């Protein structure tokens, strides 16, 4: 006769498997506090497997909250109208005092600082502000109110004012690592782009290091790593986003637009053709249901959404939606985790931010203290324990 054969691993008489099922229901911040209960609790709560299940659970049970950041918002005005949080069910309401950016630099208020949000993944947000000339890059977990400031990086082109810098933030599931990719283009080259006009043909004789790429890996030490790639050619504006699948950049390749995908695992670039190669269309990259999508719009006309069902397989582009019901021009932002379409329908000067639910064909408008004044970056709030404690910290010694 078989008996129940589970051999329990106990923590002071409390079985580990029951404990983890209880604690996984907690929000991230009280859980971080629970790490102080005892050493076995600390080791359970810092296990990558536990952190992943907690994240997965909180994405599934997400009472979706969207954080709206004005681009370049000033440090001393963290609250409305520059940063606001909204439930996606009721975007016309602002959740008061939801966004609290921790001050890690006591000198900060002395500088006139502007914050920029570069991307978010698994509840972590990558942002930067400028101190004197140099941008300071930080990784922020709003659910833990924890902030990590990255070490400065090499800047071979001199003052950043003369350069164009763009950051991408992503997660590499292969190495379980968060990576920030920095692209730096010297300003003279940007002028060159303008002179060359629309065709954007670069002279092959330009120095090969014209675009510098650097990679920061969060787990493997606190420094900027030189990447395996040192150049990307012939690119202009970069729309970049961090996803579960990699970093994708929309750029000009010769006379056409294409998506350049950066594989966060092997750190190589590859090119993906757009579903509609038509210069009249304004393309924006996004993620819909975990898959890469392109929102392709024509001025005063429809907005098509194409989904790449199999990542990097061009044949798998499928037309998913066509939004033509808006009677005005629509600037797409992307899709929320609940697959609602986030966009800025603009009627003249009256700029607004809206969520469109395709299944119910319903438009919900955001309401801010004032009008939508500047461009904004919208980030999904995800309650997450994901964090990398600095080496030598007390929590790692247990």
């Amino acid at each position, binding site marked *: 006769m*078989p008996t*129940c054969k*589970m051999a329990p691993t106990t923590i*002071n008489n409390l079985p580990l498997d*029951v404990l983890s099922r209880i604690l996984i229901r907690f929000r991230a*911040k009280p859980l*971080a506090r*629970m*790490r102080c209960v005892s*050493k076995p609790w600390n080791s359970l709560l810092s296990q990558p497997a536990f952190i992943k299940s907690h994240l997965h659970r909180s994405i599934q049970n997400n009472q979706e909250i969207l954080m709206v950041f004005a681009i370049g918002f000033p440090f001393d005005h963290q609250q409305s109208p520059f940063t606001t949080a909204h439930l996606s069910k009721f975007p016309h309401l602002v959740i008061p005092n939801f966004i609290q950016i921790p001050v890690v630099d006591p000198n900060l208020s002395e500088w006139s600082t502007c914050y920029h949000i570069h991307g978010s993944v698994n509840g972590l947000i990558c942002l930067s502000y400028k101190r004197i000339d140099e941008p300071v890059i930080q990784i922020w977990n709003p659910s833990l109110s924890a902030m990590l400031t990255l070490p400065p990086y090499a800047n071979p082109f001199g003052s950043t004012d003369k350069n164009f810098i763009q950051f991408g933030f992503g997660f590499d599931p292969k190495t379980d690592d968060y990576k920030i990719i920095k692209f730096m283009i010297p300003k003279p080259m940007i002028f060159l782009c303008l002179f060359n006009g629309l065709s954007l043909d670069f002279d092959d004789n330009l120095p090969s290091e014209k675009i510098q790429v650097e990679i920061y890996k969060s787990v493997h030490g606190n420094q900027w790593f030189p990447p395996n790639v040192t150049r990307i050619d012939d690119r202009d504006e970069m729309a970049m986003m961090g996803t579960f699948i990699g970093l994708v950049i929309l750029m000009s390749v010769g006379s056409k637009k294409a998506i350049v995908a950066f594989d966060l695992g092997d750190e190589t670039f590859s090119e993906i053709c757009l579903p509609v190669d038509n210069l009249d269309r304004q393309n924006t990259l996004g993620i819909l249901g975990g898959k890469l999508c392109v929102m392709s719009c024509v001025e005063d006309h429809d907005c098509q959404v194409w989904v790449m069902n199999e990542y990097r397989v061009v044949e798998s582009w499928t037309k998913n939606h066509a939004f033509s019901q808006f009677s005005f021009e629509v600037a797409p932002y992307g899709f929320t985790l609940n697959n609602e379409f986030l966009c800025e329908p603009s009627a003249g000067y009256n700029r607004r931010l809206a969520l469109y639910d395709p299944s119910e064909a319903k438009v919900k408008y955001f309401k801010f203290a004032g009008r939508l004044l500047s461009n904004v970056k919208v980030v999904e709030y995800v309650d997450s324990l994901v964090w990398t404690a600095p080496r030598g910290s007390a929590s790692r010694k247990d």
Partner: protein
Amino acid sequence: MSKKTLTLMSKDKQLFNIEEHLAVQSVTIRNMVKEDGASSVIPLPRVDSETLALVIEYLNRQQAPEEDEDYVKKFVDERGEIPTLLELAQAALDLDIKKLMDAACMKVADLIKDFTLEEVREALRIENDRTPEEEKAIRDEFQWAF
């Protein structure tokens, strides 16, 4: 034809009878019955008789499916003592009775979520295994969480 009955034996060797069609809500028991017919007594060496009596009461419930959620919630609510709930959660986990386990874990989580560290240690009978210096170091590191 009479309904088939199974006998479950608790850690302290008490015997409980339950109709097989109700007992197989437990995936563990269902698998045991499938494996060898489970004609004799099923020993549950990790479940004490008090907890097993509760589990049997739960398995014997006669609820309409649409009222089941409320019933499970009420069932654990009425047993609001943390040690009882932990035993129940452990038994439900061993016996693989998902609804009961989820409800018991949820109830414990609700009860302790606003506790201080000391209250958590007391409620779950956990010994603080850090020296005062170690305790201070880890509290300093997580001071943003307090």
